[in-house]
């Protein structure tokens, strides 16, 4: 097992003496992650994602429950575990801005106990894998965010971790950079069998990277399913936003819900289980004076609302 969690609970106490308030950030969480899996671990803000990741990486003690990551108890064997996992936490950079990525890798390699020969071999290997060799000798401050994230990924892969914990890794990236980053994660997983544990607010990250999605809310798992199944049930909705050059009536379309219709814009929700996005777009482009059109994933909050709205088994 890559990760095994049983009845994990974390309670934070805030305030002083008589006014102590107890907040249960993680509540009876149980979860198993298999080696080589690509798992999306998602939930709204305050759901307990970050707290549970901190426990699984050993930087936070749980109040009760058990967890083993790569056979180690994270909070008791933190440093041993740190040598076998890679972490990329949102906006916290692993690189030093005044230096080139290659210079930062030298320091990280030393911290992870690699000798010079191992360091050179792995940096060259990652340059090929991430197609980023041309970026490794530029100062980090001169890189775009997308380029930097590829270099960050190399930084957390340098010691060949068995599990990669990624917390909102695509935040702030443009569409192309996001897509490239997702492809790299999938390739990394395919070539190295690295287990991917990904948290994100971006539904597209889940669809394009993960094989399995675990949704947590109020510190507990509320949904655990293959992404393919999730796509059929919960991710079958796409949002279409259309800008109009002049007011026009909408063509009647099956499988489409009109969310908003003004003189200059239309917002639709499309159930892709009923209608293909392509057929809806064709119909809109033929029947409306379209000045702008975009297709969006539903926000995560909508997916979670749909989970709660499901009939219980």
């Amino acid at each position: 097992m890559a990760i095994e969690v049983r009845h994990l609970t974390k309670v934070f106490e805030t305030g002083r003496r008589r006014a102590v308030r107890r907040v249960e950030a993680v509540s009876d969480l149980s979860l198993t992650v298999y080696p080589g899996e690509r798992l999306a671990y998602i939930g709204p803000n305050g759901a307990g994602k970050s707290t549970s990741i901190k426990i699984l990486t050993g930087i936070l003690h749980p109040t009760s429950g058990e967890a083993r990551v790569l056979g180690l108890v994270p909070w008791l064997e933190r440093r041993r575990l740190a040598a076998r996992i890679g972490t990329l936490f949102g906006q916290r950079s692993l690189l030093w801005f005044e230096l080139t990525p290659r210079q930062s890798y030298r320091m990280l390699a030393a911290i992870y106990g690699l000798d010079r020969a191992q360091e050179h071999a792995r940096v060259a290997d990652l340059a090929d894998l991430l197609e980023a060799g041309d970026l490794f000798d530029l100062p980090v401050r001169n890189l775009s965010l997308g380029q930097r994230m590829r270099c960050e990924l190399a930084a957390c892969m340098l010691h060949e971790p068995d599990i990669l914990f990624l917390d909102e890794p695509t935040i702030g990236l443009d569409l192309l950079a996001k897509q490239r980053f997702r492809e790299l994660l999938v390739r990394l997983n395919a070539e190295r069998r690295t287990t991917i544990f990904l948290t994100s607010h971006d539904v597209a990250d889940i669809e394009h990277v993960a094989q399995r999605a675990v949704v947590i809310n109020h510190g507990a798992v509320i949904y655990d399913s293959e992404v393919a199944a999730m796509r059929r049930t919960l991710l079958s909705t796409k949002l279409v936003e259309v800008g109009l050059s002049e007011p026009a009536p909408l063509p009647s379309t099956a499988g489409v819900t009109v969310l908003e219709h003004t003189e200059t814009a239309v917002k639709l929700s499309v159930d892709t289980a009923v209608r293909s996005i392509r057929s809806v777009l064709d119909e809109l482009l033929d029947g409306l004076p379209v000045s702008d059109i975009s297709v969006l994933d539903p926000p995560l909050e909508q997916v979670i609302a749909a989970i709660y709205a499901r009939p219980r088994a």
Partner: protein
Amino acid sequence: MSRRRWPEVTAGTAALRAVAERGGLAIALVFYVLVVAVLAALWRAAVDSNGGEVAGYTVVAITWYAAMAEAVTVSLNQRMIREIGDDIGSGAVAVELLRPAPVLGVRVAGALGRTLPRLAACCAAGAVLGLVTAGVPERPAALALAVPSAVLAVACNIVAQHAFAGVAFWWRDAGSAWFLYQKLVFIVGGMLIPLEALPGWLEATARLLPFRAMAYAPARLAAGHVEPVLLLEQVAWLALLALAAGAVFRAGERRLQVVGG
């Protein structure tokens, strides 16, 4: 896996960073030259009006004293103690727990590496300034002791700043503790005034405190006093401060792991 090489690589990488920040290095150097020139002029006036000596220091000796005391202070990142405290307070230190190396060790090695290029530049500028404005120190051999003493001084200061800043593990608004720390180095550390020039009771107190290892020791050696015992005292203080900082960080990390960042 190889032998542990993170201390020298961390320090070396940090030194590269310091050299890469040419603007910061140049500003520190200009500030250093200005401060030493002003202090040397003030001390010259004081010594001249006091019959050629103040607390046993001649013009030559006090100029070299001021040059070294400022070099070991200016070469340090002046915001370091606040930055360490902020990193602890904001939880950024928690991310450093995700590496298989001690947080304190990596931080101290990095800070030392970042300081040494500045220290070398300030010492070189200070030596030129001393030679031009005052002349050769009375016992030039003492300078050979002053160089390792300067390195020990910045090491003591960096380790002590980590121990002090560690209060942020428990107390979020630790700004006043940092303010106090800097003033202690200035006064009882001998940065502004040689300890011999302080009132008797204050000098006696200062001699019991670790701050004199951070400025007074290398400055007194640079002033021409061949007193190798000062180096031994610095080593002893460095060991004690490292133990204290280690204990603070271990306790702080445990607290962070229990209550969160």
